[in-house]
């Protein structure tokens, strides 16, 4: 942190004793690489300029240079708290361009893994928000809980964080045989830990006082600023793409969409907490559906995105060529444009793709919920104390990888 008194004119053109506080880009009380230039009148925030871009890696430029498949690992690195959801958004947009119909088993697997990822993401949000308010214990409950979620992701995808699990027209592989038992055991422990987490924080006087009434953003402002996800639902708008534009198997599972009343930080916290319980419900339903369906294909049988069987490749020229083309070039996607959006842990994660008919995307636009949710931060904290910025930013859950791309 560095401070400097401005004796010159401030942003409002008045000559006064306002201080400019420069916070970030790497500050211990914020999770996320972002810089705030804050104009302070005493301890009150007069204006705030959030400067993003410190994690900009040129995601779109890189995607345009590779094949359609090569973009999937990059999407893992957008929101690294819930990588499968970004995989899913991208693959759904490509499938829309290709016009692929996936087998039912694949959709259930995607739903399951997406909900596990959502729980992991919300745990990070709620846990670190507590940590930044100097509450170490709930953070550790959250981390233990997230480990259990990541164990499940590892069992299913082979990786804990950057899962790279979802493929165009399918998933990497089917559910391993011991997964349902491990999942049920972990779910029971996760529920226990969430209960402990709830006991320690939710009615804690200090925690409630720091959160209630701070960082308020009204329904109208949420919509005008394009805020989505738990932030919008905390303001009382029951918008959830899983309900409003049901994709995958969300129209066949039973779950509720929690909403808040005033749209302050406390509402956001409660909405996320309840959403985790709802996600666990969905996971259980997916498990029993997958067990009912039994083993079978998890991929489309479309030669554009699937390689032929190895036995045919080794003995037939056509299949050999097809395999060679599939590896070196990847699928050619018909020319056109498509937008597909999923309800990620932070809100609407959309992918707008433009194809010129070649084997490389012409344009890959990621609509980042983190960026859109961060933009009205000044409105949330204007006139509030500097200390209120910490829980507000914490519960925004700005993820640099996704915000800056």
């Amino acid at each position, binding site marked *: 942190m560095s401070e400097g008194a401005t004796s010159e004119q401030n942003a409002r053109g008045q000559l006064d004793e306002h201080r400019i506080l420069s916070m970030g880009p790497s500050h211990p009380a914020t999770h996320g690489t972002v810089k705030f230039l804050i104009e302070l009148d005493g301890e009150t925030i007069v204006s705030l300029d959030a400067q*993003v*871009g410190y994690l900009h890696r040129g995601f*779109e*430029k890189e995607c345009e240079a590779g094949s359609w498949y090569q973009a999937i690992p990059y999407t893992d690195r957008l929101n690294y708290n819930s990588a499968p959801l970004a995989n899913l958004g991208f693959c759904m947009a490509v499938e829309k361009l290709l016009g692929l119909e996936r087998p039912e088993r694949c959709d259930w697997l995607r739903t399951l893994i997406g909900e596990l990822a959502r729980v992991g993401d919300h745990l990070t949000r709620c846990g670190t928000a507590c940590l930044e308010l100097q509450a170490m214990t709930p953070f550790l409950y959250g981390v233990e809980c997230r480990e259990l979620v990541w164990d499940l992701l590892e069992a299913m995808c082979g990786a804990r964080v950057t899962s790279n699990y979802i493929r165009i027209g399918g998933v990497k592989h089917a559910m391993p045989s011991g997964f349902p038992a491990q999942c049920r055991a972990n779910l029971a422990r996760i529920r226990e830990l969430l209960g402990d987490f709830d006991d320690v924080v939710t009615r804690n006087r200090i925690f409630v006082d720091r959160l209630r009434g701070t960082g308020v953003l009204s329904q109208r402002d949420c919509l005008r600023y394009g805020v989505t996800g738990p932030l919008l639902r905390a303001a009382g708008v029951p918008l959830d793409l899983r309900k409003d534009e049901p994709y995958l198997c969300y129209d066949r599972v039973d779950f509720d969409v929690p909403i808040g009343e005033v749209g302050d930080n406390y509402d956001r916290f409660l909405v996320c907490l309840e959403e985790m319980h709802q996600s666990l419900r969905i996971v259980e339903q997916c498990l029993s559906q997958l067990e009912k369906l039994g083993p079978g294909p998890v991929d489309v049988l479309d030669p554009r995105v699937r390689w032929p069987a190895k036995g045919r490749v080794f003995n037939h020229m056509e299949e050999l060529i097809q395999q060679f083309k599939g590896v070196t070039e990847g699928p050619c996607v018909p020319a056109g444009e*498509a*937008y597909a*959006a999923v309800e990620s842990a932070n809100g609407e994660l959309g992918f707008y793709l433009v194809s010129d008919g070649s084997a490389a995307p012409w344009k890959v636009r990621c609509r980042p919920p983190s*960026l859109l949710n961060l933009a009205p931060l000044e409105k949330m904290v204007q006139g509030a104390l500097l200390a209120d910025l910490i829980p507000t930013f914490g519960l925004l859950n700005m993820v640099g990888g996704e915000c800056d*791309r």
Partner: protein
Amino acid sequence: MTRAAFGSLPLARLVEVHGDALVSTHAQHGDATALVESTRIVELMAFLRDDEQVSFEMLVDLCAVDHLGEEPRFEVVYHLYSVSKNHRLRVKARVSEVSCAIDSVSSVWPSANWMEREAWDLYGIRFTGHPDLRRLLLNEEFEGHPLRKDYPKEGRQLLVGTERGER
């Protein structure tokens, strides 16, 4: 599975009221899309927000596309969503390389503010009437606009300080 959200109602309403401002329309893959005259973008957006039959409360996404070799070269793409009506519309406007400017819609939806800054940053399209058109993701010293197709992929620009440590 096709997503029903890109309904055709908003497109039909746009054709009915502002048909003269439309260049072309399509509904490829179920996404209702209207290519409009770029000079009338603010008027059309205000209509789409305020009209009771379509009521697009949200500008969900705004981005640019570089169609290098075509004229007009650039395209600005807006994705609208109506929470109350649960439908979507994609609006596009072409921007020529010579003028490289289009009116800002940040007065219609404040969410356009940062997304227009991003499009300016990465594509170099000026949004006339924008309250604060600074770069969003890159540093102010960066030269050029990296998402343009004629900007090389390896065109990294290191941000280094002077001897005194100033940028």
